[in-house]
């Protein structure tokens, strides 16, 4: 043990096949196929056009929220306030439509984005500049934003019958059979996945989350990066709020409540580490899809609705436990290789 011995022959670097098999995304796709095919064998209706469409519509809102949440989780923060942002954005957009039925749909989407960015910047200011831990700050704004929603709604609700046909058409419309909402979610997901993988700004999220002190020394403006992350997470949640309105039409003050935990669960199942610095948007999106497919498979298999939540919880626990065991074994193997 006096000096580190140089291994006689460098350990063979794992080939592309084993690296592929090790990737989280591959096991997620495998699991997805297993659940989908298994359910379809028992009940072929599971793969019918209508049911797949419904499933994708449900997942699209969670998948969108997962994008913002991943940006924040990568930096070792968390954004619990997204569900309240969704609620406030959905209700205010609805009210705008009730007041001006002629408002064009893109303007509504922009409004959602802008409102969400403002709400997100509150989180960003608190965390990046006020040095308030993200869990505390966003738990606080979860309450504040929801409270504002209650105050604005004051017992009322937006009904689909009050919304202009152009907006309802956007919610139910599709391009080449793919629903608009799904297209939008996929576009945002792919755009950000590319940004995180190949752009300097995107890589900075990983750097900040892996070691924020090292990131500072490497010349990254951690404060500004943190701020940007929260603004983006808020803006995406605001956009998701508009989609929520388009999907459901009827919105009251409790819209979106509880979504935050589903979103975090999807990200974690998708391999985004809650300790920062690890994870991809492809994985996170697959995590959202897997949770959605599991939920809808349970309905198709006529499992009592009451089992769904328990199974989702168990799945999340299994995902993080297996993850930990695998990474432990990898670390152990690495240690043994070094010793020999």
């Amino acid at each position, binding site marked *: 043990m006096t000096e580190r011995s140089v291994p006689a022959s460098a350990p063979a670097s794992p080939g592309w096949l084993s690296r592929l098999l090790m990737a989280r995304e591959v096991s997620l796709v495998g699991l997805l196929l297993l659940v989908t095919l298994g359910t379809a064998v028992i009940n072929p209706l599971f793969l019918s056009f209508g049911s797949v469409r419904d499933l994708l519509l449900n997942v699209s809102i969670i998948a969108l929220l997962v994008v913002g949440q991943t940006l924040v989780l990568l930096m070792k923060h968390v954004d619990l306030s997204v569900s309240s942002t969704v609620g406030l954005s959905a209700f205010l957009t609805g009210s705008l439509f009730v007041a001006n039925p002629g408002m064009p749909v893109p303007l509504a989407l922009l409004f959602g984005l802008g409102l969400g960015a403002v709400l997100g910047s509150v989180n960003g200011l608190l965390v990046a500049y006020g040095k308030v831990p993200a869990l505390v700050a966003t738990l606080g704004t979860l309450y504040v934003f929801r409270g*504002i*929603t209650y105050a604005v709604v004051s017992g009322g609700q937006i009904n689909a019958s009050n919304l202009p046909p152009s907006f309802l058409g956007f919610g139910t419309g599709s391009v080449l059979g793919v629903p608009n909402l799904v297209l939008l979610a996929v576009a945002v997901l792919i755009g950000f996945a590319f940004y995180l993988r190949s752009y300097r700004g995107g890589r900075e999220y990983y750097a900040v989350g892996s070691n924020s002190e090292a990131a500072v020394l490497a010349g990254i403006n951690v404060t500004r990066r943190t701020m940007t992350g929260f603004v983006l997470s808020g803006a995406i949640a605001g956009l998701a709020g508009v989609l929520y309105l388009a999907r459901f039409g009827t919105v009251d003050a409790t819209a979106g409540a509880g979504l935050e935990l589903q979103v975090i669960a999807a990200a974690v199942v998708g391999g985004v580490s809650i300790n920062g610095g690890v994870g991809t948007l492809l994985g996170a999106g697959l995590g959202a899809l897997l949770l959605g497919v599991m939920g809808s498979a349970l309905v198709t298999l006529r499992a009592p609705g009451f089992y769904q939540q328990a199974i989702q919880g168990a799945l999340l626990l299994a995902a993080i436990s297996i993850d930990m065991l695998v990474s432990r074994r990898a670390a152990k193997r690495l240690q043994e290789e070094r010793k020999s």
Partner: protein
Amino acid sequence: MNRFRSLLGGLLGWEFSLIILVGAALLIGGLLSPDFLTGSNISFLTANFSEVALMALAMTLLIIVGEIDLSVASILGLCSAVIGILFAAGVPMPLAILAAFVTGGLAGLFNGLLVTRLGLPSLAVTIGTLALYRGLAYVLLGDRAIAEFPAFYTNLGFGNVPGTLIPLPMALFAVLAILTIIVLHATPFGRSLYAIGANQIAARFAGLQVERVKLSLFVLSGLMAALASAVYTFRFASARADNASGFELSVIAAVLLGGVSIFGGRGSVVGTVAAVFLIGIINGALTILDVSNEILTIVTGLLLIGSVLVPNLLTHFRTYQQRRRIKGDSVIQ
């Protein structure tokens, strides 16, 4: 004497401000409405937050060691379902309550094992068990509600200590709070929690059994949730799977507002108790003033953020001033 002084010094910080705020809230409530400072109203409104208060005690200890338990409200729901289903099946009530405690303890043990044996972050684990335990409550009870408990037990829930206006659950809370204060602030076990929260690795080198301590706190958190479930079930005379859903955030908000650091190592039970009362009293005052509930939601959120932000800003301001003074001195020279 020394211990007394350090206790006093601790009290004069954030906890003291909170106690002043509780007094102010009581006073303002009394000035604004003649019905507020009546014994029966105070009695009613303190009973209203007894479950949150009970769960906040164990949560304080958990957050001090640097962990968190988001599943408490779900454990409450699960234990409530256990009480309901067993009672409906004809099991004598004491046994049903015992079963709820066993359930709560096991639920806490499961959380604790995942955190201490597998080394998983408690935030992720308890988000999972939040869904799992609530889901199990639905599996047991579906959307049924089991009511019609014997009067003896429902009286335990919303009765008062004989001859006083103190609600029974609050008396129970007072006893447990005092016990927790003694354990946390005056026993080696309690002090070890701060050591673990401040620096887990150093605590391990100092010979503390970090894992075992954490495991026991998770079990305690489950047991407290079971106790709160009995209180909740009897106070509302109803066992439902969705009992107390969402309470976990109120519990954590109370603990953090009480000055416990989310990073561990800092905080006191006195702070938590004061924060529980502050939130509960503001809630009660707003209700009696006919101010809608949403304002309370906003106030809770702002208090929570302010409790961390204000001290941070003060420290920042102080260092800024110091730096300026140093700069000024060097210019004179």
